[in-house]
C-alpha cells in the first residue's frame, strides 16, 4: 500500500486479557517505530526497529509490553494482561532508514480501550 497501515483500528478488551496490534510499514522502509498517545497527550516512544539490528526497547513501560518485527517488515506489538492505564491510541511510524532527519510516516493508529 501507499502508506503505513495498522490493524485493528479499534480494540476493546477486558482487563487482564492479551492483545496484539499489527503494523504494516511502507514498503522499503527499514526503520519502524511504535508510539503511544493517551487522550490529549503527546506521543510517547515505545520501541524502535532498524533493519536486522536489535530493537531499542527503552520506551516500553513494563515487561507486559513486547514487540517483534518479522522479515524486516510487519511488526506486532503485544500487551499481556492488559490494564486500564494501557488504554490509548497506539501509533506506528516508518521511515527510510536510521539517518537523522528522516521523515516518519505515521499509520492511522489502533485505539485500545481496556474495560
Amino acid at each position, binding site marked *: 500500500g501507499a502508506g503505513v497501515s495498522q490493524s485493528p483500528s479499534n480494540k476493546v478488551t477486558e482487563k487482564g486479557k492479551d492483545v496484539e496490534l499489527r503494523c504494516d510499514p511502507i514498503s522499503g522502509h527499514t526503520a519502524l517505530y511504535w508510539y503511544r498517545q493517551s487522550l490529549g497527550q*503527546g506521543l510517547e516512544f515505545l520501541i524502535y526497529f532498524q533493519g536486522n539490528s536489535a530493537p531499542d526497547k527503552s520506551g516500553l513501560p513494563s515487561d507486559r509490553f513486547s514487540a517483534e518485527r518479522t522479515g524486516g517488515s510487519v511488526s506486532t506489538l503485544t500487551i499481556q494482561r492488559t490494564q486500564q492505564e494501557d488504554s490509548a491510541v497506539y501509533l506506528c511510524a516508518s521511515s527510510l532508514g536510521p539517518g537523522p*532527519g528522516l521523515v516518519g510516516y*505515521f499509520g492511522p*493508529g489502533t485505539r485500545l480501550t481496556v474495560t
Partner: protein
Amino acid sequence: QQPVQSPQAVILREGEDAVINCSSSKALYSVHWYRQKHGEAPVFLMILLKGGEQKGHEKISASFNEKKQQSSLYLTASQLSYSGTYFCGTEWDPGSARQLTFGSGTQLTVLP
C-alpha cells in the same frame, strides 16, 4: 528528555498569525514538525536540520535557533484547515539512530 512546547493552546481568527515554540535542554541535531487533526494520525510538515536555513511550506514556515536550542513554527494568515495539534519532534544525536522525542503538543484552533 521531552522538548517543551509553548503555548499549550492558541485560538485565533482566520487570517491571523501564530507562532509555536519548541525548546530543548539538550543540543539539538534536528527538529521535526507534525500536525495532527482530531482522530487522525500526525502528518509531517517539515524538518529543520542543524545548520540549516529557515524552511517554509505555503504559509507555514519554521526556524531553528541552534544557540537557544529552539525551533519556532510560524503560521501566517491562518486558514481554517490549520486547526489541529502541532507536535515538534527532536533528535539530539545524529549517530544514535534513535527515535524522535516529541513535545506534548500545541492545540491550534482557527475560528471563522
